[in-house]
């Protein structure tokens, strides 16, 4: 972004305070543009009225993120990468999570390809109200044979609608792949100093995003990017090479830092998303597959934190994938938004007067963890989210946002009457709030049972302790 104050953006707005955008004033809208929660398209007059066309174009130029945004694939599952404006997440937030693509080799047999693609496409992990998912498939032309590659690309495309990366340095092979993935907008990997002309032409011909690759050579990388940009290619991704171990890995890390710093500092010729290849961990001669997988996860972690926008990975072991997807989520969570649900009484399943009553806090991580632990195990219940200003159980007990009075308040506000709405007058409380038990018995005049410390253990606990004796 070339501007950083609402006042600067305000100059380009209609300044009528018409309110169509849902904000009371154009100035308020301008500040939403600056924090990137709104887009210019959210101001109808600016977009519709011809007289603003010039201002709109100028404003969009000023608001464009420092790092170019590139879209891979089509439709709902398209992967958007890049688009960042800052070097540290607390300065704003990072946009567009690092995308995790997993490899498929074209020399695998068809059944194996289908099985692996399904495994990648189906992998999911519930977290804070959503599923963490994997993002795409990188098809490697290991065979070097255009026909084989095209067949593999076709098979992958028939099996999933996840976006694709087509990997080969041979333009003929890439072309065969592009033909097999028509209209899928795959990412082309890669143009290097030897094949750049042919690959660049393919990118133009098929209108697809393309990776420029130069191993540990930032001058060449920038040269390639500049040449492509000059030829009218906008969707460029940078591959500075990812060396898996030793000094080579340190150099790779340094390259990622340098490229991103230069891009954010305004060097537009290198301000593109970066591709990391933790995959190369498998080329480092690490014999034990668990160790190789761990090392791949280590590399993925380094480049999730330091500026990898898209990664090609290999290990689909849950012990590799789970921490990788959680770290991406960690680094890309918007630090500006309080992660809370509304304080209210929620029904999980179809509770009746016999069903148990639980409470938890309205911190999203806490609430969704508890809710999904209960729902997934088919327990029908009443679940009260006490408004603790979005703080988890343990911290809220320590910080005073979770007290017996607060809990009573929450019951009252949600119009839930323990004496009428259920027939047992019992509340099950989080194990980590055990110290509130006495106070709660007084304030709710109900029977209070202390549940387990971790809500994952509620099902087991229920077997022993419910219905309440």
């Amino acid at each position, binding site marked *: 972004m070339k501007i950083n104050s609402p006042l600067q953006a305000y100059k380009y707005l209609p300044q009528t305070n018409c309110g169509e955008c849902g904000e009371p004033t154009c100035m308020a809208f301008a500040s939403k543009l600056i924090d990137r929660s709104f887009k210019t398209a959210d101001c109808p007059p600016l977009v519709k009225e011809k007289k603003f066309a010039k201002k709109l174009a100028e404003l969009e130029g000023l608001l464009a993120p420092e790092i170019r945004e590139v879209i891979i694939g089509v439709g709902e599952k398209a992967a958007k990468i890049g688009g960042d404006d800052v070097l*540290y*997440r*607390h300065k704003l937030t990072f946009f567009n999570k690092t995308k995790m693509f997993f490899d498929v080799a074209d020399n695998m047999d068809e059944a194996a390809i289908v099985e692996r693609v399904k495994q990648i496409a189906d*992998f999911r*992990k*519930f*977290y804070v109200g959503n*599923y963490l998912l994997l993002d795409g498939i990188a098809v490697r032309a*290991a065979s070097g044979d255009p026909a084989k590659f095209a067949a593999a690309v076709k098979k992958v495309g028939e099996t999933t609608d996840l976006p694709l990366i087509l990997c*080969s340095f041979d333009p003929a092979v890439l072309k065969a792949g592009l033909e097999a993935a028509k209209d899928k907008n795959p990412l082309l990997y890669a143009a290097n*100093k030897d094949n*750049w*002309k042919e690959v*660049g*032409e393919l990118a*133009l*011909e098929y209108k697809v995003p393309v990776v420029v690759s130069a191993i540990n050579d930032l*001058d060449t*990388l920038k*040269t*390639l990017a*500049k040449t492509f940009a*000059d*030829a*009218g290619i906008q969707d460029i991704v940078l591959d500075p090479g990812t*060396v898996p171990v*030793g*000094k080579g*890995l*340190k150099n790779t*890390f*340094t390259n990622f*830092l340098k490229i991103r*710093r230069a891009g954010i500092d305004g*060097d537009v010729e290198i301000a593109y998303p970066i591709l990391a*290849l933790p995959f*190369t961990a498998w*080329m*480092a*001669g690490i014999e034990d597959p*668990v160790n190789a997988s761990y090392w791949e996860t*280590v590399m993925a972690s*380094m480049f999730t*934190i330091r500026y990898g926008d898209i990664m090609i990975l290999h290990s689909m*072991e*849950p*012990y590799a994938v*789970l*921490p990788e997807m*959680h*770290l991406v989520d*960690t680094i890309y969570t918007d*630090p500006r938004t309080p992660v809370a649900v509304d304080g209210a009484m929620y029904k999980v399943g179809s509770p009746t007067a016999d069903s148990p009553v639980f409470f938890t806090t309205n911190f999203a*991580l806490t609430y969704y963890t508890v809710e*999904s*632990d209960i729902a*997934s195990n088919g327990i029908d219940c009443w679940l009260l989210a006490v408004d603790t200003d979005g703080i988890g159980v343990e911290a809220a007990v320590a910080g005073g946002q979770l007290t017996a009075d607060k809990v009573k308040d929450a019951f009252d506000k949600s119009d839930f009457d323990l004496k009428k709405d259920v027939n047992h007058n019992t509340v099950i409380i989080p194990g980590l709030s055990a110290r509130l038990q006495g106070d709660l018995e007084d304030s709710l005049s109900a029977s209070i049972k202390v549940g387990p410390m*971790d*809500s994952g*253990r509620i099902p087991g606990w229920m077997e022993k302790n419910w219905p309440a004796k």
Partner: protein
Amino acid sequence: MAKKMKLTDITNMFSGMDIEALEGVTIEGDIELDLGGLGGGSDPMLAAALGQESAVLAQHFARIAGMFGYPVGIGGPAAAAPAAALAAPKFKDLIPAKFDVANMADWATPIQEVRIGNTSADGGSRGKAVHVGGEKALPFYFDADMPNRNQVTIDVFDMRIGLAKAVKQNYDEVMDSPGEWAKKNVEQFNADMITIHLISTDPLIKDTPAKEAAKTVEEVLQAVDVPIAIGGSGNPQKDPEVLAKAAEVAEGERCLLASASLNLDYAAIAEAALKYDHDVLSWTQLDMNSQKELNRKLMKQCNVPRERIIMDPTTAALGYGLDYAYTNMERIRLAALMGDDELTFPMSSGTTNAWGARESWMVGSPLKEDSDWGPREYRGPIWEIVTGLSLALAGNDLFMMMHPTSVAFLKKATQTLFGSIDEEPVDISNWIAAEV
């Protein structure tokens, strides 16, 4: 197949191709041009396919038009541009570019270097000392070399405690002897330091008297010659007394007393550190301002010299608040480098907290909808590795850890980025065809 055509035809042909760059070129007149040898010049697709030749051709048109005084107004090189837009191949030569980026000018304040452990040269009995801090940039950045590598201290407890299965199987036979436990950590698991946690002193656990707990500290100091950190039970009433007694029996060894915090008598801990020659761990909970406040109090109110302070801004596990812990550390380190001298201290992480995340210890997901989580014995260590490595990148120096595999990987990862691990170079140029 020679064919005659007029320049107007050619203009029309180009304009039909929706080529912006040619718009300025309006050539009129009835000059006849022989396109012989170029194939069917009237077919736009073919013209496009002719590529470079078309560019040359267009240049010719321009020159011819110029000769005849037609309003083209473009010289040779400029004419090439419209022509280049014509055909698919838009590339001629690489456009050379040099990459350059500046170092950070505002990272002007170095982090304090702190020594843990006294060797005989300093009047102690440690075989070596450990140094943390001294950075002038974010960790592993090219702006300035990192003077000291990351260090790992492995936990020892003064009693048998409940541990995740994957952790426990490494320590089961030494868990009743803190000395043996410490030895195993150093000899087999490559610990740079040992942390002895005196948790049995908690009134709600065994209420071991401070004096007796101090004997465990002596036992550990005799069993190993690496520097040690001494932790209490976390009970704010009892910890000051326990740590003071431990500090006394460890006099002159320059241990790290863990921890001074705002909710206990930090002054008593600071006093013990100064009297018996130790360092202080300044622990706050995920709040940069509290961290500043406690550091300020330790320095101004308790007169702890800067070279004896390490901070623990709290570690939350991956998926359990690491976003807070990571950013808290990164902000602290950036503020320090930019001159906030209440924060210019090395940092320590209770990385072991990673074992609190359910993903690291639960047999499987409690949710039926989740994909299979796979064997937990492999999940736990990597959870600890990723939690620690993330914080290493945020600026953490010292890691309190538990699982030997996690220790090994964290060390390898951080020392690789530090630059001290040299391995056979790996040729990655053909990764696409790699056998995996």
